[in-house]
């Protein structure tokens, strides 16, 4: 009997539950996302360090053991940011009990105007479990850069607005990037792909 056959037999004997425990997140099977972009071959967002309203520092590793969904915006954005946050609320509901595994992280691209308190109040108004992160303009610029997120201030009278990328980035429980969810996807489409990703977490 060769090794391969033996191994196969052992695996078969373990059954489905055992197999899942054995493979866990260690393997990198090809995930079949139906709607989102497979970003498994990209390395993004590995070294950011930003603060919440209490001054606690968060890095990607702060979210190990859960499935972080990270996206960028600003509180004075009337359209895409609230709809993306509202969609995240809806996604969590659609995922049922698995929704608790999803950790929603909102990073401001407008640290000069989004004071930590306004940012916190805004994000928590959607769901108190969401995390709102900010930093110095330099830290935000570095974070956006490492995520490949484009943003720029656009003058508006004596004020300005911010144009920005709208993708939500989803990592597995060990901080490996897998999925990019476009702004145009519905909550149901996102939830379906997130449940696919959960199969390996």
């Amino acid at each position, binding site marked *: 009997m060769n090794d391969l056959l033996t191994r196969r037999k052992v695996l078969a004997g373990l059954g489905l539950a055992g197999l899942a425990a054995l493979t866990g997140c260690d393997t990198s099977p090809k995930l079949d996302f139906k709607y989102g972009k497979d970003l498994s071959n990209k390395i993004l967002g590995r070294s950011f360090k930003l603060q919440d309203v209490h001054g606690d520092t968060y890095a990607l590793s702060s979210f190990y053991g859960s499935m972080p969904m990270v996206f960028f915006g600003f509180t004075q954005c*009337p359209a895409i940011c609230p709809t993306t946050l509202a969609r995240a609320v809806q996604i969590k509901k659609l995922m049922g009990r698995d929704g608790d595994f999803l950790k929603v992280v909102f990073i401001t691209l407008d640290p000069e105007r989004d*004071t930590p308190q306004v940012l916190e109040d805004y994000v928590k108004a959607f769901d108190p479990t969401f995390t709102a992160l900010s930093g110095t303009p330099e830290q935000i610029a570095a974070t956006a850069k490492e995520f490949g997120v484009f943003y720029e201030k656009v003058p508006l009278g004596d004020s300005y607005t911010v144009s920005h990328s709208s993708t939500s980035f989803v990592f597995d429980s060990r901080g490996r990037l897998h999925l990019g969810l476009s702004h145009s996807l519905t*909550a149901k489409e996102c939830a379906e792909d997130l449940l696919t990703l959960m199969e390996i977490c």
Partner: protein
Amino acid sequence: MLPIRKPLAVLALCAAALPALAQTTVENAWARASVANQHSSGAFMTLTSDTDAKLVAVQSPVAKDVQIHEMKMNGDVMTMGPVSSLDLPAGKAVSLDANGYHVMLMGLVHQLKQGQEVPLTLVIEDAKGNKENLEIKAPVRSLTEGEPEMKHGHVHQ
């Protein structure tokens, strides 16, 4: 008979009153709630004009500056900016929603809370250049309002 007669009477009243009041109807107007010290928010609605017209300005006492904005997607990047007017072709329902045009309330003078109403003056200009002010009150809805899937209940296949 009474339950039927009453709505008919109301309908008749509306029909009589509408053409005299305005040629533009406003449906489903609402403003998004804000949190304390948030400087801006948005207002949304559906406008239908009987004749070709355009929305040229919006005023409100709740904000220092009110602009008509267009949100555009350039690939993955969202950009937003003011437009000088919004065309209201005759008979066509024009939506101001989170996916296109909206009324931007900039420099909020107070926090917008659910249950309040935001007075808005819509300045509509007809094809001849006559301007008319349309006064409406937009109820303030929660921050989480406006997720398209929730609003229309449609499902993408």
